[in-house]
């Protein structure tokens, strides 16, 4: 005996309401819970689905939620490795050289104060544009939330905060800095952001490939 779509949906909604927000982890949990319930029914349990489900959750909910937290931790670790590896790729090197030359040229034509303003505005602008696009897509197309993509967003958000903090603290120092050092500093930040974007694009492709039935 197999569970019907309404019963599967019930498990999915229950887990979603239990803060298992990401579709990639939730689908695995749904399959596990459903397989276990089916196995109970096939072994001769005559109770209805909802009673079996209630007992299952009483016994296993803590383990399932622990799994959720561990999954996010493993995802973060994987993403940090990916970003670091991408920073060392040839594409990142090319990006760094081009952006360095462009900014160095720009810095020679701009006053230090203006450059500092660029440095403050760029991260927040890119963050707002990317965030609005992502959440807009989710709402309009009613797409599922996937862990790695949102954790990348979180990483980008943290980068923005670091940039913003450094930008606020360095307001006075910035004007006295050597142009080369300043441009190198800005480019290092841009390199991190570029790598995060590269990894995000790769993740989206990967999700589309592995989860093609959903997307």
């Amino acid at each position: 005996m197999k569970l019907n779509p309404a019963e599967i949906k019930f498990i999915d909604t229950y887990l979603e309401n239990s803060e298992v927000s990401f579709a990639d982890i939730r689908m695995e949990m749904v399959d596990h819970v459903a397989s276990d319930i089916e196995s109970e029914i096939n072994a001769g349990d005559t109770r209805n689905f909802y009673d079996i489900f209630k007992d299952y959750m009483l016994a296993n909910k803590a383990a399932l939620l622990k799994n959720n937290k561990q999954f996010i931790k493993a995802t973060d670790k994987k993403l940090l490795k990916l970003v670091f590896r991408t920073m060392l790729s040839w594409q990142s090197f090319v990006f760094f050289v081009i952006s360095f030359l462009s900014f160095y040229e720009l810095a020679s034509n701009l006053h230090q104060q203006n450059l500092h303003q660029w440095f403050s505005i760029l991260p927040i602008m890119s963050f707002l544009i990317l965030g609005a696009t992502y959440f807009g897509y989710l709402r309009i197309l009613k797409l599922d939330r996937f862990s790695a993509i949102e954790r990348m967003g979180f990483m980008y958000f943290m980068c923005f905060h670091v940039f913003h903090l450094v930008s606020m603290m360095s307001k006075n120092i910035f004007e006295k800095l050597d142009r080369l050092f300043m441009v190198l500093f800005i480019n290092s930040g841009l390199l991190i952001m570029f790598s995060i974007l590269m990894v995000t694009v790769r993740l989206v492709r990967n999700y589309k490939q592995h989860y093609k039935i959903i997307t």
Partner: protein
Amino acid sequence: MSNSKLYRGSLNTIILKLLSQHDKMYGYEITQKVKALTKGELNITEGALYPALHKLEAEGLLDVEVVKVDNRMRKYYKLTQSGTKETVNKMEALADYINTMQALLNPKLA
């Protein structure tokens, strides 16, 4: 999992070994296979199994494939090339460990 502390260190090896014997497996299938092979002695909980699977996947030892089965999505795991190599290493390490423990606890058998 009974004697969980003793088994915990070998969980990754158990998963890799099982996957090396099958083309692909999903989480629940792994728990049931382990339960059947050990005649119910070893019961892997989802709180232990999935974090281990995700860690192995993050390390590049496992690849995943998602398929629609029985009205739901099912995530299958299979070994990558480096996963196959790692299985051999882990099995050797486990065999050494068993020999060492046997020499310590039961010198006559070692």
